């Protein structure tokens, strides 16, 4: 019963705040600027907006951190952050769900139908008689009809492992090793923090952050390879589309997660935050990190292997 009354101490409601309205204005500039940039009206507004968004967010989170250090967060408020983070990650899962759903639909229905197979194959048979349904499609339906004159052409090579001999130089495998071990190291760091061993915690968190940035660099190398040597681009038909959109959004999340973890490292080593009991900032970052890791496992399976 004591725990019950504890969670209902006075709940901290800030009297007022200037941060959200500034953030909303920054989002307006960034959103409008992004649309301008995409539509070809210059990128200045986008950059101004993004800088404003990043600074406002950084200020917001530092305010929250200061409040927490000042002891304003009751167990109940902490609970709010825990629930909030969990549901935020769920929303991220659903974002990836849309892209995985698109991949599965394209692989199981769209491409076979275009190749003349299955329940709706008849239209494909009539429209693209030469198109063969394979995954990945190295020749797009349009290419099967128009050859070199097609606007949308398939890639020269794909990212799948072609023979076991090349496995040592197959980047996706290394990426998997890097990311899976980073999930392990962040767990070791968490265990260390629970034992209040800050030195060990900082070390293993540092290793995790390093691995995160190694992953991003490897991914950049892979993209460079794809664009310069494999003829695989965003525009290489539906394979290029799904490959880059899935791995691209994942890579972006790795970068965000890496920065998230780095912030916790700075808080822990620079500002001496966190104790064995109070470390939700770190815990949230590690949840996010495990989520990014799980997405990668699905990617590795469905984009690189199967």
């Amino acid at each position: 019963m004591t725990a019950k009354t504890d969670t209902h101490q006075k709940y901290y409601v800030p009297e007022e705040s200037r941060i959200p309205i500034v953030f909303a204005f920054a989002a307006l500039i960034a959103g409008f600027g992004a649309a301008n940039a995409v539509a070809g009206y210059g990128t200045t507004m986008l950059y101004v907006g993004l800088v404003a968004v990043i600074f406002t967010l950084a200020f917001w989170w530092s305010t929250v951190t200061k409040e927490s250090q000042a002891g304003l967060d009751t167990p109940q408020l902490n609970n709010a952050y825990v629930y909030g983070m969990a549901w935020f990650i769920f929303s991220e899962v659903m974002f990836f769900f849309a892209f995985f759903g698109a991949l599965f639909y394209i692989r199981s229905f769209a491409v076979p139908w275009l190749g003349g197979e299955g329940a709706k194959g008849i239209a494909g048979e009539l429209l693209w008689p030469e198109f063969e349904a394979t995954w990945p499609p190295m020749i797009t339906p349009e290419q099967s009809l128009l050859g070199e004159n097609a606007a949308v052409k398939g890639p020269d090579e794909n990212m799948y492992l072609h023979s076991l001999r090349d496995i040592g130089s197959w980047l996706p495998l290394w990426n998997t090793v890097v990311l899976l071990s980073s999930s392990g190291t962040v767990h070791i760091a968490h265990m260390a923090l629970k034992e209040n061993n800050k030195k060990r915690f900082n070390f293993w968190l540092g290793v995790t952050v390093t691995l995160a940035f190694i992953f991003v660099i490897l991914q950049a190398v892979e993209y460079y390879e794809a664009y310069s040597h494999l003829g695989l681009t965003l525009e290489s038909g539906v394979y290029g589309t799904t490959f880059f959109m899935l791995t691209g959004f994942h890579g972006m999340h790795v970068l965000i997660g890496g920065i998230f973890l780095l912030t916790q490292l700075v808080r822990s080593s620079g500002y001496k935050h966190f104790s064995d009991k109070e470390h939700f900032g770190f815990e949230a970052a590690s949840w996010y990190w495990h989520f990014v890791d799980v997405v990668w496992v699905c990617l590795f399976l469905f984009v690189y292997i199967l």
Partner: protein
Amino acid sequence: MSAVVESHDHHHGPKKGLLRWLFTTNHKDIGTLYLWFSFLMFLTGGAMAMGIRAELFEPGLQLMDPIRYNQLVTMHGLIMIFGGVMPAFVGLANWLIPMQIGAPDMALPRMNNLSFWLLPAAFTILLSTAFMEGGMPGFGWTFYAPLSTNYPNIAYFVFAIHIMGISSIMGSINVIVTIMNMRAPGLSLMKMPLFVWSWLITAYLLIAVMPVLAGAVTMLLMDAYFGTSFFDAAGGGDPVLFQHIFWFFGHPEVYIMILPAFGITSHIISTFSRKPLFGHSSMVYAMVSIAVLSFVVWAHHMFTVGMPLVAELFFMWATMLIAIPTGVKVFNWVATIFKGSITYETPMLFAIAFVVLFTIGGFSGLMLAITPADFQYHDTYFVVAHFHYVLVPGAVFSIMAAVYYWLPKWTGNMYDEKMGKLHFWLSFIGVNVTFFPQHFVGLAGMPRRYADYALQFAEWNAVSSIGAFLFGFSQLLFLYIVVKAVMAGKKATPQVWDGARGLEWTVDSPAPYHTFEVPPKITEQTKL
């Protein structure tokens, strides 16, 4: 440590001046902002509907070219859904959830402010296209690819949707966290008022599908500007894929716009029948079932697109299953009214109209769910009549009912009952005169989304337009009644309605700026 806590302990009333509304973290202020914003959008989208009905008053092109007409239809849909109905429900959630569960405020007050202020930002971006070369989006609120990917200014549309989505997700996280974390001790989940329950489920739906919408518009943007082939068969994609992704969002979205209405109706019918709600827990289970089913029925919007037969059958049966939990709800409302001591104040009138007219919309929905029949009805005015019956005398009536019902609690003043009744009857007649004839022209084959039509549809379209003007202009009366009640009026008691139950009726009218600084005691009287 405690010194810092105490310096924040002196709670004052609201700040003076306009800045109060920019910086506020108070759930009541933010609820008010949401409600006024949604009313502004309701009038904007409504003005567009007036334009549409004026053009359709008689056959031929009188007022605008088809491009302008398409833009009005598109913006009317987008504004009413994302700017009208959804923010109105979020506004009600903000006002009512903390009061109904005995919480001091929403769990994350600053994020709450942000959720609101992102909406004007998003609509600024969306509406700015009106002043650009190429104009506003004209591809329908469903923005089917590849029509939308070939449209000018789609980038502005995409980023506006992104910002609305972020706002919705943050708002929903806030609702869920508030409900899970801030209930007064003793208020268990199954004792929770139904409006709170309906919002808990709605928030869950929003968090599940708004990211999918974000994914859909992202794919659209990539196809339109970056040469990807998601929806392009030439590159191995499929335009139908767009419709699957869109409606995976879109169908739960229509329940997002009706579940809170179920919650509101349950409160009002119980109050004015002076009886506890019949079947409280079955109402909860019915809403949960509707929410779960909403994820597996999306392709009933796509029966004519060319899906395999198995899919057509699966989505037909799954859709019809929804009639069961919905039937449970209608049964419970009727059973609550049964043998009650009923009085017909304005909220009750709107609530009863909701039950009857929403059920009509539900029945036409069942007709549309039958695949072979849908081949005939698809994209006709029958569909337009169907979804306007569930959204206007459904969602919108419930919002108006809620405003009348809780307005005395918000302002401390009673609204003018006579004027309220007049508003109800004008709206009720207007809605039915507008939308009922659309069933007839739809069954006769009039297609939707055209600026012109065949002569045989002329009479019923004229009738429909007259009804629309009646409904449209009666809403100015609503504005007048609300403003009048905000300014002055007979003072309301804390209880306001003698049959009302729930925590919000235990506090003063108007409710104090900070309601429950200390969690209240839950008693039999405060339970719904």
